[in-house]
């Protein structure tokens, strides 16, 4: 039992971090970023290149991923989403754009990094073993703790920094934020960059454990969508809750339902649909704009 909870917690932390970026972009721009998973994969490959190919320390890799993805995110917002949002009649049009970007990043990743699975060496060896009740390798503990620390840092940033306040304001009421002197274009870009950066950071963190390959993008996006649906799209607390809930569901489901064969995910998906039918706005509703 303890093992299941710890697994769920570890999974939840990384999921929540992925969902945070997606929900931030959604809340600011009303864009469902189909390319989020690809950004995550790109982050993984950047860290891989820096750590495994160039032989630099892991932390440099992480920073490299964060910076690269922030720049990529900013570019995507400025040159792609902004003009399209401005000119399209229906806001769903951004979905085509997002999907196009997802394909594009897939292609770029394939050309730059190849088709193989990549990984970086373990950053710490050893396994924490509490009497076989909880078994957790130290590197996972580290990554889990780092992920939770990043979530906390993100919350603090959004809560107490000037830029964070500006983005929250923007998400809740675009016009009012503009009236407060918030440069809407600039902060939309910062928000998108931040969201992309979070995706890149998770990619960088997880490359030490799961490795990275170019196929992880699409499924990651779908999982992230599920998390923000569970929690309520566009809400920070919802994304975190959604991440941890999905993590726990996987952990518990895989253990409890394993005996029944291949149905864990079927059950998870089906219960998600039932849940949304009952509570369409997710757990936390959609309070921001």
């Amino acid at each position, binding site marked *: 039992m303890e093992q299941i909870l710890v697994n769920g917690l570890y999974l939840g932390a990384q999921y929540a971090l992925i969902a945070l970026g997606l929900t931030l972009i959604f809340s600011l721009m009303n864009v469902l970023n189909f390319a989020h998973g690809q950004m995550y994969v790109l982050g993984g490959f950047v860290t891989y290149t820096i750590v495994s190919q160039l032989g630099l320390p892991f932390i440099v890799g992480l920073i490299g991923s964060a910076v690269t993805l922030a720049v990529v995110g900013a570019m995507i917002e400025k040159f792609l989403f902004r003009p399209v949002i401005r000119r399209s009649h229906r806001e769903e049009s951004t979905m085509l754009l997002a999907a196009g970007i997802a394909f594009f990043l897939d292609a770029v990743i394939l050309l730059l990094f190849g088709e193989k699975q990549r990984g970086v060496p373990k950053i710490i060896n050893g396994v924490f073993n509490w009497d076989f009740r909880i078994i957790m390798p130290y590197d996972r503990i580290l990554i889990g703790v780092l992920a939770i620390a990043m979530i906390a840092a993100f919350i603090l940033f959004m809560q107490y920094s000037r830029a964070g*306040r500006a983005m929250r304001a923007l998400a*809740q009421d675009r016009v*009012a*934020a*503009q*009236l407060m002197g918030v*440069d809407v274009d600039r902060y939309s870009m910062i928000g998108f960059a931040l969201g992309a950066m979070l995706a890149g950071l998770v990619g960088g963190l997880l490359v030490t454990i799961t490795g990275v390959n170019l196929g992880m993008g699409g499924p990651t996006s779908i999982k992230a969508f599920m998390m923000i649906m569970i929690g309520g799209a566009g809400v920070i607390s919802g994304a975190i809750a959604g991440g941890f809930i999905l993590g726990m569901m996987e952990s518990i489901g895989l253990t409890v339902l394993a005996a029944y064969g291949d149905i864990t995910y079927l059950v998870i998906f089906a219960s998600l649909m039932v849940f949304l039918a009952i509570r369409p706005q997710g757990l936390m509703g959609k309070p921001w704009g």
Partner: protein
Amino acid sequence: MTAMLSFENVELYYDHVYALKGVSIEMQEGETVALIGANGAGKSSILRAITGLRKIHSGEIRYMGERLDGTPAAEIVRRGIAMVPEGRRVFPYMSVKDNLLMGAFTRTDKADIARTLDSVLTRFPRLKERFGQSAGTLSGGEQQMMVIGRALMARPRLLLLDEPSLGIAPKLVQDIARSIVAISRDEKVTVLLVEQNSRMALSISNRAYAMSTGSVVLSGNSRDLITDDRIKAAYLGGDV
């Protein structure tokens, strides 16, 4: 003396519908000016044009002698123009504190901001009681006070108020009216007030413009207008 704010023959339309048809108005520093008229007469469009939310299509807006139209919205706030938007538009999931701090977004001196925050809280003691609460849980009147306070946080020279009495219980409307008078007096702030409650607007302003379908139809001292028969008939709901 040059006007603090002036509109010269300003035209503005949404899609193909005119919102302002060649409007010219003027305000002097320290005045309180009211814009009255029916919904859709163009009052709010004037405010949107000043704050840069809408681009004007012809004419000129000048502020402190300089061209204002075409300036980015953020820069306009920095120049000392703050607006209390229609329907309040609080940031409902932010605390009262964060809402107020958003008002000072363009300012950087932290100590200075803290001083302004103090003075706003002194002016609206209710906000102090609700300081940590999220703004969405406030009553309509409290929200209205908060957004006025939020605008003051920018330490504006020109304060724009868009329908501050909308959806507010009559008693509170009077409180708000008193606050507006007090603010213009204490802070030496110039006020441009858009109101449907024409009686209130005329009673607390120095001058007023009456608007109809995108044009100014009447202007003058508020005291004179309030007794004007045309105004009475059209806006004050006398005998019909």
